[in-house]
């Protein structure tokens, strides 16, 4: 505790002593400054008691997004697997390494590629930093997707957390946007052609407006591409725009969304748990969670009477432990694991850099980063449907889930809800089989354009393997809603199918597509050039 006893202590009864000289006071205050500075950092003193641990949390601007006490249910590994914190840790890594890369990177076509080469070969630690940046970005994409799966399968999106689920979808989109914009910056062949394809996906509403013959008056696709590239082709304007998006606009949006996301986790009552979580937890082993290390004293005050839910209404604090140290040390552990993983990957494998961008000769095959290869598989059927239509449908479907599933059973439990784990296994089989069967059919027999070269484009846009797979998934989950008489069962089926489709299409795009996007069992079968 802070002690500001004046020096020297003097009692009124003592014989009058001369007041200390100004210089002596000065010297003593100077001597005490380091201790007083340390004490002034922590407003409540060292976190040694329940009370000072509470003030450690709410007296710190960085920590006070957390609750003062954390429920033991939420601290189990199986509750979260630390996936959200791992994604955040990867994001922090990309921010730090990204700022460092900005010291040398030059966003101009004639020098961008050379500056990346400088970073790789000349700049001290430059290659290591670029590798970390690249691997942390990959870990972040994986982490965000797995985190979403965890939240979904534990039914943690339910009221009052619907809004935070939607914010989370926004974070997924911004994360993918950050990856995509970062992809152009090296200005190599891979970058150039991936962005050319991406920009033309933005333009693909023309596929519909052209077919309707209204592009002349309403060219939404052209406008999107123009805004993205600042031109009609990928060039210096596009590079500056992608750079701006990558280092400024998207990070700002991401941080704003993150703030809302974390704040809502807290305000929505922490992690979702089953109603009977208190009873199901095993008793605390002696000495594991030292709770109430001093006589219970007031650790909070009612600052205002507010309407709505507050985190602890109706629940005793029996199964909660102080966030400091229990939650924070766990978070630090996840952070360190993520950092260690990213560093190990960065030491093992270098970020790729192909030859300098050549606007006349595309890569063959020209492949996007792995998490976009599922999309690339879809755009190989129809640019508009695969690149814009189906992703929009998927995002809308995911956003609607918490508003359609208003059930209570199974909240906070893995595969909770009607059907449970068995339904998920069935949906895994259905989702995988549907995607594989449709793909196999197309690869074997082709599609409308090969059978009827004169078929109108709108027919191909509306009926193609991508929309067929989407339709099968939608019908299957509606059937599940009926069979189990529960929207949650439908959601379990739909989400599982969505994951299956994503994985199957990504695997096909990554491993089984060769030159001219043909199907090959192995790259060894690719025709020579």
């Amino acid at each position, binding site marked *: 505790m802070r002690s500001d006893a004046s020096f020297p202590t003097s009692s009124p009864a003592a014989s009058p002593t001369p007041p200390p000289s100004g210089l002596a006071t000065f010297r003593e205050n100077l001597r005490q400054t380091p201790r007083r500075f340390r004490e002034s950092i922590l407003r409540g003193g060292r976190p040694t008691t329940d009370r000072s641990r509470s003030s450690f949390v709410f007296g710190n601007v960085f920590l006070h997004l957390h609750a003062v006490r954390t429920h033991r249910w939420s601290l189990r590994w199986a509750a979260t697997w630390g996936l959200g914190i791992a994604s955040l840790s990867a994001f922090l890594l990309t921010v730090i390494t990204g700022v460092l890369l900005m010291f040398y990177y030059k966003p101009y076509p004639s020098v961008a590629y050379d500056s990346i080469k400088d970073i790789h070969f000349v700049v001290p630690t430059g290659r290591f930093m670029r590798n970390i940046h690249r691997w942390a970005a990959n870990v972040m994409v994986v982490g965000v997707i797995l985190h979403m799966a965890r939240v979904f399968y534990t039914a943690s999106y339910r009221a009052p957390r619907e809004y935070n689920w939607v914010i989370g979808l926004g974070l997924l989109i911004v994360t993918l946007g950050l990856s995509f914009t970062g992809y152009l910056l090296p200005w190599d062949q891979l970058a150039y*052609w991936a962005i050319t394809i991406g920009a033309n996906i933005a333009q693909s509403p023309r596929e519909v407006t052209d077919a309707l013959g209204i592009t002349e008056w309403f060219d939404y696709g052209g406008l999107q591409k123009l805004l993205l590239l600042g031109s009609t082709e990928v060039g210096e304007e596009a590079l500056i725009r992608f750079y701006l998006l990558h280092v400024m606009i998207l990070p700002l949006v991401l941080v704003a969304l993150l703030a809302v996301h974390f704040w809502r986790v807290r305000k929505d009552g922490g992690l979702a748990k089953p109603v009977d979580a208190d009873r199901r937890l095993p008793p605390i082993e002696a000495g594991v969670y030292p709770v109430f290390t001093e006589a219970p004293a007031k650790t909070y005050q009612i600052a205002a009477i507010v309407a709505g839910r507050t985190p602890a209404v109706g629940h005793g604090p029996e199964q909660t432990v102080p966030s400091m140290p229990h939650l924070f040390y766990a978070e630090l552990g996840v952070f360190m694991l993520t950092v260690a993983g990213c560093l190990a990957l960065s030491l093992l494998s270098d970020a790729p850099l192909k030859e300098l961008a050549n606007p*006349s000769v595309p890569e063959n095959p020209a492949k996007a980063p792995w998490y976009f290869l599922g999309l690339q598989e879809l755009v190989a059927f129809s640019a508009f449907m695969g690149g814009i239509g189906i992703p929009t449908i998927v995002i809308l479907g995911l956003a609607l889930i918490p508003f359609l599933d208003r059930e209570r059973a199974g909240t906070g439990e893995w595969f909770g809800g009607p059907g449970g784990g068995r339904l998920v296994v069935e949906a895994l089989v259905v989702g995988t089989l549907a995607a594989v069967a449709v793909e196999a059919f197309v690869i074997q027999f082709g599609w409308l354009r090969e059978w009827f070269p004169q078929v109108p*484009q709108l027919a191909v846009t509306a009926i193609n393997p991508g929309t067929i797979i989407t339709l099968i998934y939608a019908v299957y989950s509606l059937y599940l809603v009926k069979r189990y008489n529960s929207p949650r069962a439908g959601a379990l089926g739909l989400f599982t199918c969505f994951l299956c489709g994503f994985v199957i299409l990504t695997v096909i795009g990554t491993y089984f597509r060769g030159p*001219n996007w043909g199907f090959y069992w192995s790259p060894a079968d690719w025709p020579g050039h």
Partner: protein
Amino acid sequence: MTSTPTGLRSRLDPEPMPRRDFLGMASLVSTGAALLFALIGSMRLPKAAVLPLPARRFNVSLPESLPPGEPYSPPGRNVAVFRDGEGVFAVSLVCTHLGCIVKPTPTGFDCPCHGSRFGPDGSVLRGPAPTPLQWLMVKGKDGQYTVDESITVPQGTRVSV
């Protein structure tokens, strides 16, 4: 509360809006309108008025020895110029699907990115391309021609040799 000049107001008259409510509403509406217009105005900025593009029109001299049906690609241009019995024509090599550069083959054109295949006249044979390859405006004669990439012409348009 304001009152009418006569000082009398019927119970049935609507309540006049209190001054503070009016000022609050006015500031709310004006702020909203200002933000909306500022947003529209700043969205206008990224839509470039002048595009930094190289000249879309270029001259090409066809070699005498160019066999009929063989493509001639001027360096740095994604265009194939052909000469056959009926005349000279130019086909854009930019795939109409997602903008990759197609490769001339004996059977027409192949796109490396998503497997679209086009016939010798640019029409779609297979794959996801929604429209045929564009034919470009050609002018000139006697081996000296001018191609304009910004003007498309109907399929089959040729200039006589």
